Each structure stands twice: as structure tokens, then as C-alpha cells.
């Protein structure tokens, strides 16, 4: 019997479900996926790409006659969210790449999401239309005009059913509030406000008001030469409307309370792991930069991702290395800029497992409760329907066993930066460069 909320990463066998995107080796720059996000019910899955487009997939309703074939995700809506712009004042191009998408909790029949590029956040409404009016007075339905003298009575149009049409329309544009590149957006549990964070500042917005935002964190030094750290990610607590957290490039996480004061430059709590002196190297500072921070669904824990590890914080702090085997390759990773890759991480629905991506199209699942982990691969070879994914192993050095892959043969151009886990079921969406893979729990 399948458990709905998802068990541990190791009891579950993952099998291939679908892959989206072109299956050829020529990757168009605009198709590179830059963000993946499930909505609150898991029925919709949104992806954003470098070309400024948002594609939304919808889970089909369960097919009772084929219980082993879990619902599939099909394209529901596609729209161009952001266009490239040019900042004339600074002579800089503003990329249309979608940095983040966040869904709003559903408030009526339509769906709402926030999407952002480096400078502008937009609120999109996605709605369905299944009726259209029919009946004109002055013309036929096909557009030909009638003779005006033949009109003897007035006719009121009537609504008739039509094929389902999904429309996306921009409802709000929140612009001109960020000098630096926006890296995160997060919706507050009050459903009224949200924050947006760039390298040095965090702003608080009200969803109805586009011409004003409040600055709640500002770490810009008076003298820019004294700049030593930048904000890398920020998120609101899932239940407490006053708490948010932001991470920095120096590996620290600050928890802030908006109740205490209007400007939250002073943090309430600081989370930092002192470094193991034996591991210190030239690269220490770069690899300690936190690329993502996520609260668990229950709000008791927080997970951060730096270059080599995933850390889970609570009052009792724990941390789990992700790809420790890369430590020996840091030099070459620095040379090809891979050391600056920003990996995201995510929790499963009941906060027992966390997932994050790695190189060679590998992704890792780490089970907190059972303290076990597994490495899986998203590749074209394992694309047969319901094919179970085999765990992969990387050999750091020395004798390579059969089935293992040597760290030197890893393809560092194939990286999985963005992953998402369905909020209730064991369905995951994993983005390689330009493909979206959907895997499900194997149903017996």
C-alpha cells in the first residue's frame, strides 16, 4: 500500500515517469531551465527558463483503470513572463532569465504566481475560460454585418460552452526597487506580503501595492570597498508571519524578527558552523557561500546548501555532506568556474528527506531520520516508462569498483541545480540543463 506523504528516501524506489524538453544535444541558451516549483497542492508544476518563459504543467486527474500509471504532468499553460531590457542609465542589459517562481496559496478559481528576473517581479494570474458569449445584434457570428433595417428586436448575448482555454495575464508589476540582482522571493504566511532579496538588500512588498516597498534589511556598507559579504538567499517562515531568514556568502544564516523593529538589520539569531581547520584551503571561503536556504514544512528546521554539503539546522544542529568527493577537485572546479554553481535544495512533504542536485546529472536524497542517503541519475538512458532508477556511486580515488564512476569522469557541464518535491506525494521534478525529468515512487 502506497503511503501518501512519502516515506524515506531509501525505502522508496524511484522510477522514471516523464521527461520534458527537447531531446537533442544542441541546447538552445534560451531553453536552459532556471527554476522549478510545485504549487501548494502539487497539482501544478511551474518551470522558468533563461528565455524569460514560464511553462506550467498540470497533473492529470487519477486514471482509475490504470492504477500503476500515476497521474502525468501535461502542459497547462506557457507564457512569456519577462523580456530582455536595457538600462540606459547604466548601459547594462537586464536579462530576462527567470530567477525564481513562487506560487501564491489559491484564493479563488484562478491560480497566481510570482515570477522574477534580476530586477522586476511580476504577479501572474492563470485562469480557465470555458464559456463564451454568442449572439450579436448587428452582425452574424462570423462577422458579416447585417442590414440595420432588419433589426426589429434587441437580442442579449448568451453564454455557451467552449473548449477550455487557459489564459495567463500579468496582474501586477513590482519594479524599480532593486539596485542589485534579485536572488530570492518568498511569500509571507499572511498571504498579503512578500519579500524580495538582492545582493545587499531585502524589501517587503504588499501584493496589492506596486509603487512602494519597505526596505527591511540593508547590509550595504557606507564605503563599498569594505564590502565582504552579500545576501545569497532569503525565505519567510512557513507559519510565523514575523520571522524570516537570510543566508550570506560567508556561510552565515541570520534569523530576523520583524516584530522587534521596522528595520531588521539586527538579527535575532545567527547560525554559523565553525570551520574544520583541517579542511581549510584557498577555496574555503568560496565553498562556504550558501546557495540556498529552505525552511522545513513544519517550520522547525531549516536547511542550507553550500558547495559541498547540505546542513540542517535546529537547536541541535546537524549537517550532511553531499559530494564530499569533490573536495579533491576544487582546483579544477575553480578554474572552470563550476565552484560558483548555485545548487538548490528541497524538503519532502513530511520533512523526513531532503534532496539536492550535483554534477553529471546526479541528484542526492538524504534521509534525516534513517541517516541514509542515495545518489540517483537523471539521464536519457533511464527513460523507459516505470524504469526503476538504480543508485549510483562515485569513487573518490583508489580502486574503482564495478558500477562505480570515478570522480575524474564526472561531466561537470551536466549539473542539476534546480529540484522540486511534490508537497504531498512522492513525485519529484529534477531539471537538467534543458530538460525536466519527473520521477515517481514505484507502485507495485
Amino acid at each position, binding site marked *: 500500500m502506497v503511503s501518501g506523504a512519502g516515506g524515506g528516501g531509501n525505502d522508496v524506489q524511484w522510477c522514471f515517469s516523464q521527461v520534458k524538453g527537447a531531446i537533442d544535444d544542441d541546447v538552445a541558451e534560451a531553453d536552459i531551465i532556471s527554476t522549478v516549483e510545485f504549487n501548494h497542492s502539487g497539482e501544478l508544476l511551474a518551470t522558468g527558463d533563461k528565455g524569460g518563459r514560464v511553462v506550467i504543467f498540470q497533473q492529470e486527474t487519477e486514471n482509475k483503470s490504470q492504477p500503476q500509471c500515476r497521474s502525468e504532468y501535461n502542459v497547462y499553460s506557457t507564457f512569456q513572463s519577462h523580456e530582455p531590457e536595457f538600462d540606459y542609465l547604466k548601459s547594462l542589459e537586464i536579462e530576462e532569465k527567470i530567477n525564481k517562481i513562487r506560487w501564491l*496559496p*489559491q*484564493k*479563488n*478559481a*484562478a491560480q*497566481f504566481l510570482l515570477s522574477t528576473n534580476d530586477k522586476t517581479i511580476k504577479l501572474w*494570474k492563470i*485562469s480557465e*475560460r470555458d*464559456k463564451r*458569449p454568442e449572439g*450579436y*445584434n*448587428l*452582425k452574424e457570428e462570423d462577422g458579416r454585418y447585417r442590414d*440595420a*433595417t432588419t*433589426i*426589429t*428586436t*434587441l*437580442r*442579449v*448575448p*448568451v*453564454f455557451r460552452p467552449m473548449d477550455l482555454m487557459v489564459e495567463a495575464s500579468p*496582474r501586477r508589476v513590482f519594479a524599480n526597487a532593486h539596485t542589485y540582482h534579485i536572488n530570492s522571493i518568498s511569500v509571507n*504566511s*499572511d*498571504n*498579503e506580503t512578500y519579500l524580495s532579496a538582492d545582493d545587499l538588500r531585502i524589501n517587503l512588498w504588499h501584493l*496589492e501595492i506596486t509603487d512602494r516597498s519597505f526596505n527591511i534589511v540593508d547590509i550595504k556598507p557606507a564605503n563599498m570597498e569594505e564590502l565582504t559579504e552579500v545576501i545569497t538567499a532569503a525565505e519567510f517562515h512557513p*507559519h*510565523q*508571519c*514575523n520571522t524570516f531568514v537570510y543566508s550570506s556568502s560567508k556561510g552565515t544564516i541570520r534569523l530576523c524578527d*520583524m*516584530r*522587534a*523593529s*521596522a528595520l531588521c538589520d539586527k538579527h535575532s539569531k545567527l547560525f554559523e558552523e565553525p570551520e574544520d581547520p583541517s579542511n581549510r584551503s584557498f577555496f574555503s571561503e568560496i565553498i562556504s557561500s550558501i546557495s540556498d536556504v529552505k525552511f522545513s514544512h513544519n517550520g522547525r528546521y531549516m536547511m542550507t546548501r553550500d558547495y559541498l554539503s547540505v546542513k540542517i539546522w535546529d537547536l541541535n544542529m546537524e549537517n550532511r555532506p553531499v559530494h564530499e568527493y569533490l573536495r579533491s577537485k576544487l582546483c579544477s572546479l575553480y578554474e572552470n568556474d563550476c565552484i560558483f554553481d548555485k545548487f538548490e535544495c528541497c524538503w519532502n512533504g513530511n520533512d523526513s528527506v531532503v534532496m539536492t542536485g550535483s554534477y553529471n546529472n546526479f541528484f542526492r536524497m538524504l534521509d534525516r531520520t534513517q541517516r541514509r542517503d542515495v545518489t540517483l541519475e537523471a539521464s536519457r538512458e533511464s527513460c523507459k516508462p516505470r524504469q526503476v532508477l538504480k543508485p549510483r556511486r562515485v569513487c573518490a580515488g583508489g580502486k574503482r569498483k564495478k558500477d562505480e564512476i570515478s570522480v575524474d569522469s564526472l561531466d561537470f557541464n551536466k549539473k542539476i541545480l534546480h529540484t522540486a518535491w511534490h508537497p504531498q506525494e512522492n513525485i519529484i521534478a529534477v531539471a537538467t540543463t534543458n530538460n525536466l525529468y519527473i520521477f515517481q515512487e514505484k507502485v507495485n
Partner: protein
Amino acid sequence: MAGADSDDSLYPIAVLIDELRNEDVQLRLNSIKKLSTIALALGVERTRTELLPFLTDTIYDEDEVLLALAEQLGNFTMLVGGPEYVHCLLPPLESLATVEETVVRDKAVESLRKISHEHSPVDLEVHFEPLVKRLASGDWFTSRTSACGLFSVCYPRVSSTVKAEIRQHFRTLCSDDTPMVRRAAASKLGEFAKVLELEYVKSDIISLFTALASDEQDSVRLLAVEAGVSIATLLPQEDLEALVMPTLRQAAEDKSWRVRYMVADKFSDLQKAVGPEITKNDLVPAFQNLLKDCEAEVRAAAANKVKEFCENLPEDSRETIIMTHILPCVKELVSDTNQHVKSALASVIMGLSTILGKDNTIEHLLPLFLAQLKDECPEVRLNIISNLDCVNEVIGIRQLSQSLLPAIVELAEDAKWRVRLAIIEYMPLLAGQLGVEFFDEKLNSLCMAWLVDHVYAIREAATCNLMKLVEKFGAEWAQNTIVPKVLGMANDPNYLHRMTTLFCINALSEVCGQEITTKHMLPVVFKMSNDQVANVRFNVAKSLQKIGPVLDSKYVFIHI
């Protein structure tokens, strides 16, 4: 049937109806705004059976169209056949009340409230209340938030069983899962309480209020504060202490500064609601704490209320309370670190002088005014200067004038032009209060200096200022003091200054009168018509056009 008229009268209506579906949103909007014309042409029956069902399904449209529609429907009672048919308007308004756009929902709720009054009590029970029930138990947050605004209008005229149902629904919404709905409930709590019978206010409303005031969401708690103030006005004095005050006290010490800010903001209303006894015992210490709050926004909100709070204290103990409790806090605020706090204080502190009387003002308040006059923030200084009339009444301006003049001069020469502009705007007021001798002695040169400021906006404002001064002090004064100087500028080497002379003449000619204009100003204008700079010359032409009406018509004919 109205529709069977001649073809001519049908055609424009037919156009309007077709445009309801037009691609262009402006045309659709136009048609919706003329909905009453369409309804009249169709007649009441077709409006009810055809037009309204069509409108019920048109919720796919743009906000402005939906907003206009919601508004129109509020006035449609007669067009559907009068009060006995008014319930037909409920379906389209119900669907508009579920739209995500807040302005549209609010307008739909407003229209529903309007037409609720046209419903007979029977119709209220048969049609309106079920609508409210449906919205209140709807799946979407939007319908539940709209429901909150409808309880108070249908409660008064329904039977007691239905009343019990309504109270139950409201209770459910106050503890809804979604903050959005709880916020709507909190913001309507006061209004709902007003229509309830007192026994239910005490039994139901108080517990709902207490629950909302301790909600986990800050945004809900701060709305509960305002509700609390409304509820306090409904209860008899003896119940206030037990039922409402503990919660309000808690709000004044809430962990979230936003909630404390709301308390500060509503403090005067609160004071009026709870009455003098509780004010003395509870509100005075609470106000002191707000004036000393750690968050500047809260202190500023409290500072804004100082005058009103003091004015509304009970007469017998007013002076003592102010001198012992409020004044010490005010003294601290004068040297607050945050400029907005000082600025807020400066705009009300002068008002205390009328309450405290001459002696106390001279001894205690005067030092504070003088300190704020020397504050480094220009806004603080400006706020003091703009409120001098209260002090004038009590102690006369002479006391202040020693400090006043340097302050004015400093503001008049501030580097920021907007600050200079603000002081110019106060100049006529000041001149009136200080009197013509003081003005001539000290301020005249300032006004002249502004006429040759670098910034055009200042020169323009200075010109306008001169006109107002002449209105106050009279044409003769103008002739002796201002006019010679203004006309002297006509020989200035800088063409901008010569043009300023012309603008001044434009402004002053009317207030100075025909004689001065003809004798003194006109010759100067003529002379400038031969000016080297073209801008000056064509402004001469404009001036002549402006001052023409002031002059004697014969003169105009001969010379111009």
C-alpha cells in the same frame, strides 16, 4: 414590450449591446457604464430574464469593466421592476464578490449592502441571507472575505432563528484557517457589534475580539485594535474594565511594533471611548509607554497625538496629569534620535500652550519650542514655524522673535530649494503675525533676495509671496517699500532678473491698483520693450496683456 419600437431607436441600443462583447476594453467599459440605457430599452422583464444572466457569466473581464459593472448593479433596483424583484440582482453581484481583485469585490459588497435595504424582511430571509451563507461557506477565500461585509446589513431585519445562524457564521469566519478571512472578519467586527443586541455583544463579540486580538498573525491583531475601540463605545462603563481593557492593555504592549503603532494611532478614539476614569488610570501610563517605545515609528505616532490626548483629558485633573506625566516624556522626545519623531512632535507641541496657559508655557514649553527651532532637521523647524499662531494667542510673539529670526534666515538660505520654498510659503502668515514693522525691519531683505534665487521655482514663489504681502499690508506700503526695489531690478545685467521684474509687475499690478501701475510700473515695462534679450521683449508683450485690464481703458487705447 419596449423592444418593438421603431428601428431608429433600437439601433443605438443594439450597438451598445454588441459592444458589451467588443475586443476593445474601452468600448466594453463604455457599454457597461450605459447599462441602465440598455436595461430601459429591454424593459424590466427582459432585463431580469436575459440581461442579468448574461452579466452573471461575464466575470472573465478586466477589473475596470467589472468595477463599473458592480457599481451599476447597485443602482438597478427600479430597472428590474422595483423592490419586489430586487433579489434578481443577487446572482451577478454574488459572482462579482468572489473575484480576486479587491477593488471589484469591495464594490460588489458595497452594492449588495445598498440593495439589501430595498429587500423586504421576507426577501432578506428567502434570498439575501442564503447568499450570505453561501459566500460564508464558499471554498474560496475571496467569497468568505466578502461575506464578512454583509452580516451587519442583513442582521437587523431578520427573525431570531436566522439571527442565530448569522452569528454562528460570523463566529466561524473569525476562526477561519486563512489569515485573509480573519482579517476581513476583524475589520468588520466593530460594525457587526453595532447592530447586535447588547447581550450578544457581551456574550459573543467579546470572546471573538479577545481571540482575534491574540491571533498569531500580526496583521489580524492590529485590525482587532480598531475593532476594540468600536466595541468599547457600545459597552456601559462598568463592563469596560472587565471585558475590554485587559485586551487593549495587552495590545499596547504587544511584541509587534505594528500593533503598538495602531494603538498609538487610534489613541484619541480610544480615549473618547473609555471615558475619563479609565483614561486617568490606564491610558495615561499606556500613553507614556508609547511615547518612550523602542521603535521610532511608534513614538512618532504617539507624538502626533500628544495635543489631542491632552485636550481630551478631564478638566479637573488635566493640568496635573500633563505636568507630571506627559511633559517629561515630551521633553525627552525633543531630543529624540529619529527626525520623524521630532517632526511629528513639532507639528503638535505648540498646541499645548493653549491648554497650559501663559505661565506654564513660558516656564516649560518655551524652552522646548526654542530647542526645536534650532534643530538640525529643517522639517522640525518648519513645523514649529507653521504653528506659531497658537503661541501668539497665549504669550505673544515677541518672546519667540529673538530666536525666530535666525531660524527663519537659516531656513531661507538652506541649501535644499524645497526647504526654501516651504519657508516662503509661510512668509505671508508670519508677516501677518509679526506685524509690518518687524517685517520691514528684518524680513524685507529676505523676500527681495528670493527674487534673485538661482532656482526658478523659488523666484516664482517669491513673486507670489510679494503679491500676498501686498494684499495684507496694502498698496501704500507696497509703493513705499517693495515697488522701488522691484523696479530697480529692471536694470539688472542678468536678463533673468529683468524678467522677474516683469513677472512681479504682472502679479502686483492688480493688488496695487491702477494708479501705482500707471505711474510707476508701466514706464518700466515700456522701457524694457527695447531690451536686448528677446525673451524679455516678448514677456513685455505678455505683461502688457496681463496688466491691460487694470489700466484705464483710455490709457490703453492711446499708449498700448
